[in-house]
């Protein structure tokens, strides 16, 4: 068996190597990230059969938990790790040709560090270690948002940094409180002692965590930074931020509220926040008729709202739907941003009007774009259909009146979503473009990742069994706290 700690160590080592590589040849450093991330993807896929049977506890430094930091590779963490390494591998191929602004070696090193941070978050079993990896993810996102060094990018990064730093401070304070109350930082040990604390204290700590991680997950009303950051970053970075970074925020929320705090009765509040976020995001996206990237960014807020809503349903099926939606949105939204990158490059503007008629000039990109749009709206036979169906079914199944109302709102949001997405597809194909004589199809480095993403969306939609096994295991590992605790600390 390959040791899962390599999943974190390999991207880190790669990122440290890149500046040395760049001393020899700056152009060569572009090819390192795809290699490194391919290694990560292979390792994480090869771990699936073992982890499906039993979670792997990786002990670091050779001391017994809870006296050391341990990695907790259960199905939930591993599914996230697979999604992260798959999407970032495809984006790193895209970046080989797309990133032209100097200093490119810094871009590639920061990209690898962002991925290392995200993988560290989903695998670690220690609350302070989670904070450290969260900071790695956040700080590299701040820097990459400003990569173009233009006015909009630096201002968006500044805003993101200020709000993100406040969120991190909240998380650190919550960690300090946890240490003060429980005297330990190991997540399994905290989870096993959680009942000894007073409910009011736990509520305060949970609130601090929700604010801290909610800023990264962009739940309403903490999402002010997202539209600016996602729309003014380079398209490959928008793809990783929308596809990966906000999902890790959602992962942290799920891990804290389910495994750590066992706060199932409070999750109806989370559900409410999710529905509000969904509606706010979709309505803002519908209202955004000018900037295509800003529209996609608002749509990301809406989709995160849907995921958070499904997590709050607290049934097995609800969590399963949420995780399916995580996979679907990671694939589809990164495809949309990657496709948009070259569409913007061709017409030289972010404006939706400029894209009119591009479908004939860039047929492959436009078809892939359309597939991703259909999947996000939830049409069969694409992946989004399965996730939306299971989320709605799970919510109805609870039988509570509140959730029936929520489902109606989710359906309303879907209609809004369909409205603005079909508007773009229509203008891509059925409008006559004005000045498109220089527009041409995207290069191979972009088409290959886009094609793979589109094929995956169709494959998962037609044959959901590809990933249901893994996601069912993930949903189970989120619900079964006892198994989590006993696998780290040994049977009680």
């Amino acid at each position, binding site marked *: 068996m390959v040791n899962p700690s390599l999943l974190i160590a390999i991207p880190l080592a790669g990122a440290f190597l890149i500046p040395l590589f760049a001393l020899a040849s700056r152009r060569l450093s572009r090819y390192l990230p795809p290699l490194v991330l391919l290694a990560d993807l292979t390792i994480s896929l090869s771990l699936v059969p073992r982890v499906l049977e039993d979670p792997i506890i990786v002990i670091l430094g050779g001391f017994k938990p809870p006296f050391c930091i341990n990695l907790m590779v259960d199905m939930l963490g591993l599914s996230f790790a697979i999604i992260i390494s798959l999407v970032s591998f495809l984006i790193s191929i895209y970046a080989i040709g797309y990133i032209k602004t100097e200093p490119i070696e810094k871009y590639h090193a920061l990209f690898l560090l962002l991925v290392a941070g995200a993988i560290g978050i989903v695998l670690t079993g220690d609350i302070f270690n989670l904070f450290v990896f969260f900071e790695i993810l956040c700080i590299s996102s701040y820097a990459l948002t400003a990569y173009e060094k233009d*006015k*909009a990018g630096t*201002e968006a990064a*500044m*805003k993101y*940094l200020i709000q993100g730093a406040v969120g991190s401070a909240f998380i*650190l*304070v919550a960690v*300090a409180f946890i*240490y003060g109350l429980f005297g330990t930082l190991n997540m399994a040990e905290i989870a096993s002692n959680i009942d000894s604390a007073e409910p009011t204290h736990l509520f305060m700590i949970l609130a601090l965590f929700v604010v801290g991680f909610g800023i990264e997950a962009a739940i309403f009303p903490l999402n002010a930074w997202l539209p600016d950051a996602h729309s003014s970053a380079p398209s490959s970075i928008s793809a990783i931020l929308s596809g990966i970074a906000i999902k890790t925020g959602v992962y942290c929320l799920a891990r804290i509220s389910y495994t750590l705090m066992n706060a199932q009765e409070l999750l109806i509040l989370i559900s409410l926040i999710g529905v509000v976020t969904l509606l706010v995001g979709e309505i803002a996206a519908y209202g955004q008729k000018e900037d295509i990237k800003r529209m996609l960014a608002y749509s990301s807020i809406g989709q995160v709202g849907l995921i958070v809503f499904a997590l709050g349903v607290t049934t097995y099926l609800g969590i399963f739907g949420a995780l399916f939606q995580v996979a679907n949105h990671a694939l589809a939204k990164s495809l949309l941003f990657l496709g948009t990158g070259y569409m913007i490059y061709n017409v030289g503007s972010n404006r939706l009007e400029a894209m009119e008629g591009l479908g004939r000039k860039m047929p492959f990109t436009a078809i892939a774009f359309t597939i991703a749009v259909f999947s996000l709206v939830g049409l069969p036979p694409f992946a989004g259909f399965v996730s939306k169906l299971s989320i709605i079914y799970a919510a109805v199944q609870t039988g509570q009146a509140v959730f029936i109302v929520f489902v109606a709102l989710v359906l309303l949001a879907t209609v809004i979503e369909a409205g603005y997405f079909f508007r773009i597809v229509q203008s891509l194909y059925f409008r006559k473009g004005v000045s498109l004589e220089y527009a041409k199809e995207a290069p191979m480095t972009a088409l290959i990742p886009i094609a793979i993403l589109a094929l995956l969306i169709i494959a998962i939609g037609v044959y959901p069994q590809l990933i249901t096994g893994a996601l069912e295991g993930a949903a189970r590992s989120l619900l079964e706290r006892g198994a989590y605790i006993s696998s780290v600390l040994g049977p009680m």
Partner: protein
Amino acid sequence: MDLVANSMYYLGAGALILIGLYMVITKNNLIKIILGLSLVDTGTHVLLIAIGYVKGRTAPILTEELLESVGEAIPKVVDPIPQALVLTAIVIGVGVLALGLSLAIKVYEHNGTLDVRKIRGLKW
């Protein structure tokens, strides 16, 4: 007197965090906002160290004198974990602050001002 002695560290830490938060929310100058973040950081560090303090014990460094004086017994030192956490947090904090300041310099180059009311992308 005892009450003061027991709560003053928490009070100081909380005061710093709250002053910092208030600065981040209400100040208009970017440098002032980042100074507020720095105060929040310092406050959290004090809070963590105060949580780890144990009365009547010494620093967690087992010098030879200390080891000889206790013999086989467990040496009386304070909790080392919060100190390790704060070391980590200090370094993370300086990284965020330095990156924020370099972004602020860049924002100033683009706009000629640090006033968030006058910078379109920073209004909220």
